[in-house]
């Protein structure tokens, strides 16, 4: 069922609306994957980072355009306009304010989070909550791509260029502690403008094998196998978008018997994955953070994911 504001008699007045969206810490798996028709799509499994958020507030105004703060967030503005049009408020405008604690350009998905928060704020202004699939479609229309964060912490194989699910992976992620490293060197990356990787046929077939393993890892909530998927996928990424100090990060993961290493395929983030189901996980994460800092990864921190009782790290 769709609410069409254009049916004037049913159109409710826009109110102030607020929307939020979470960040991510890059991908557990990224490559190209077949859909049910056998066509290949670029796709990924996102590693969500729910403690960083974007928050958008939309104050409606009748007439005029959408004005956005901070200035220059034109894609968020575009997303707000597309959402107004989708809901039948094409003539309306408003003031959109984005507050976000997500750093720009490192692969945290700050841009998509801005868009998703903005779309949700406009929908909330119309008294609606959109389906995640609709939110993604609007984000793709505004930006040309969207990652899976509209779906929160659900585990999905997601086609980021089309903004649609290729395959639901059925479960939440197993409990993990992610030790976040920044490979450093380069400045922020315009992730949408980045030329996509041209994978060769052996890599495309390797993604098929990885898809089988990621299904198993999520069905059985096996953090170690999920870490293997991430490491192999990160190695493929490294062939196309080399990150400085990648090998050092891999060695850190091995030396501390971590499950694996994931990366933001378009960004500078790397994450050592620790199985939070192990009793000593918190202590191991703390040791790893210290060791990473000692070997020169300056911006290092750890965050839990899907862990029920969190002690400060």
């Amino acid at each position, binding site marked *: 069922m769709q609410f069409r504001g254009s049916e004037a008699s049913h159109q409710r007045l826009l109110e102030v609306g607020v929307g939020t969206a979470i960040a991510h810490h890059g991908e557990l798996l990224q490559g190209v994957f077949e859909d049910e028709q*056998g066509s*290949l799509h670029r796709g990924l499994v996102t590693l969500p980072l729910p403690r960083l958020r974007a928050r958008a507030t939309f104050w409606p105004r009748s007439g005029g355009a959408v004005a956005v703060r901070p200035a220059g967030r034109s894609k968020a503005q575009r997303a707000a306009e597309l959402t107004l049009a989708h809901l039948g408020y094409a003539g309306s405008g408003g003031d959109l304010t984005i507050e976000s604690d997500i750093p720009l350009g490192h692969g945290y998905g700050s841009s998509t989070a801005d868009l998703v928060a903005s779309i949700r704020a406009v929908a909330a202004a119309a008294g609606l909550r959109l389906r995640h699939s609709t939110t993604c479609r609007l984000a793709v229309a505004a930006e040309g791509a969207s990652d899976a964060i509209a779906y929160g912490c659900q585990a999905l194989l997601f086609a980021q260029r089309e903004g649609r699910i290729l395959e639901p992976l059925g479960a939440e992620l197993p409990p993990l502690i992610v030790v976040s490293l920044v490979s450093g060197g380069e400045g922020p990356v315009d992730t949408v403008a980045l030329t996509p990787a041209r994978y060769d*046929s052996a890599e495309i077939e390797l993604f098929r*094998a990885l898809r*089988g393993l990621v299904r*198993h890892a999520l069905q059985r909530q096996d953090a170690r196998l999920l870490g*293997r998927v991430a490491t192999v996928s990160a190695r493929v990424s490294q062939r196309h978008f080399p990150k400085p100090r990648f090998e050092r990060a891999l060695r850190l993961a091995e030396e501390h018997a971590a499950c694996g290493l994931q990366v933001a395929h378009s960004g500078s983030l790397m994450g050592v994955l620790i199985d939070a189901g192990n009793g000593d996980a918190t202590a191991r994460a703390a040791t790893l953070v210290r060791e990473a800092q000692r070997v020169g990864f300056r911006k290092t921190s750890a965050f839990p994911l899907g862990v029920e009782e969190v002690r400060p790290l």
Partner: protein
Amino acid sequence: MTRRPKDGFLAAYETPRIVRLASNLHAACFALMKLLPARFMLDRAEDDGRLPPSGQIVETSSGRFGLALALLAAVRGYALTLVSASSLVDPPFVRRLEQLGARLLLEPDTEATGAQAERLARLRALLQERPDAFWPRQYDNPDNALAYARLAELATEAIGRLDCPVGCVGSGGSLCGAGQFLRTLFPSLRIVAVDTHGSRLFGQDPAPRLLRGLGNSILPANLVHEMIDEVHWIGALPAYAAARRLSRAEGLYMGPSSGAAWLVADWQARRSPGAATLVILADEGHRYRDTFYDDSWLAGLEGWPPAERQDPVRLARVACAGESDWTCLDWARRPLAAVSGKNMTKSYVAVIR
């Protein structure tokens, strides 16, 4: 980016069942394994224009690969010419290929050696006649090996971590193909190859062989010796006996090469209880109803029944043995020349030139 034609039934028919036979032993049971690489090779040739719509396919095969091509050619509307030898095909097989619309050219082979050279000469003549024909070259085409990522996908989805795949080698596609992807996922993977006596693949001198569905008289490029940790040579008799035991123990009615692979995998799994072992069973047993699934046929076989054997004879170097024997060698990922001392050219492209 690419679109795959939908094959309906055949898409399901190429897919193995992954079943658990023991706590640490799984089997990938194919009805007709060769459909998987044949389909993949045709897909890739369609994608890059080597195989146009209604095009011509030529291949030399007397076995399951020929049947797989015939099925796909029929469903997808290609003309298929298969070159084989009179000694290698039986009337039901010939009828089945012909009913699928394939053209079968048989080289006379009174010596029953397989007429490999004659078949390749005939194939070369066909290719000169029809330079636009697509020759899949299962022994050398890298797409043969890449096709088995699908097996790696299904096996890891069902089983998760794998330590030891065991499979027969004919072209090398299935074991080295699946093995390549599985080893990328699990770097400590141990790959166990199963061959038969009189096969050239792992350094024995070529000789007449009783066992079908594994072994080779030529060296395919898809066999990467440097990937293989251990090689077993199984004679026809222990393979038949194993296939019969498998059908009794599990209700799994498979061909003789599957018997050989299961014999080795079962031994391997019992010997290494902590290692997750996967055995590739390539083909069902229906075409062997009148041979080794028939007790009176077996009774006429020299050396039947073979002595019950718990373990293989471990060799220090490659050595020939008989149809009753089971031998094995620690291959240790060495190139063929380092093990056999022979320098041999891989691929039958080389033979043709």
